[in-house]
């Protein structure tokens, strides 16, 4: 019998596994933020979900074998956090619908300046060609 196979040692490893699982779910949203330049990954949050599921499984597996309270608490914390993340991702990222567009003729004459403070006329741009306006919301 060596120290690695003592009952306490196995439980200690399972507790560590549960903690690792919790840790993985805690940092999983970072992976969503980090994939901001990769359209598909960012829209779906794919890497975040993968890391989260791995963490959840790890914590769950650990709690199944190690019946001590401390490991179960970690597993419950993990599960609760995952539920919060899912709710947040689905509900708190929602945006209100847009309202009616005003008459373009009027909008085109509104004053606009560029990043150098120079006046830009949407009216003038529209004389040349079609214009694609991108509203870049630089915030959550």
């Amino acid at each position: 019998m060596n120290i690695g196979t003592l009952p306490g040692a196995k439980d200690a490893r399972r507790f560590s596994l549960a903690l690792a699982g919790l840790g993985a779910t805690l940092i999983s949203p970072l992976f969503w933020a980090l994939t901001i330049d990769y359209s598909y990954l960012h829209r779906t949050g794919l890497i975040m979900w993968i890391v989260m599921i791995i963490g959840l499984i790890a914590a769950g597996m650990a709690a199944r074998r190690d019946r001590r309270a401390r490991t179960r608490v970690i597993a419950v914390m993990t599960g609760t956090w995952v539920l919060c993340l899912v709710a947040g991702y689905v509900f708190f990222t929602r945006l209100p619908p847009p309202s009616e567009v005003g008459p373009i003729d009027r909008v085109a004459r509104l004053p606009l300046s560029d990043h150098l403070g120079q006046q830009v006329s949407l009216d003038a741009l529209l004389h040349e060609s079609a214009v694609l306006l991108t509203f870049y919301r630089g915030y959550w």
Partner: protein
Amino acid sequence: MERGNLPFPILADEERSITREFGLLHRGGGPGGSDIALPAQVLIDTNRQVRWQYVADHIQNRLSAEQVLERVRFALANGSK
């Protein structure tokens, strides 16, 4: 602009007036409860018609550049007056 040598202007809508005229104002959605624009693209042709627009329903649902270009090309190629 200095870094990227962009062929298009980056505009500042400080009063949010353009944003409001396009119906894209998200009241209280910005930092500290300020008003901010919804993430959106609007394609206007030379006849001042809105030919295509996209408005995000969730903050993470933004189109890639390729997707936008595809839709713009399609919109401009079809329904020309």
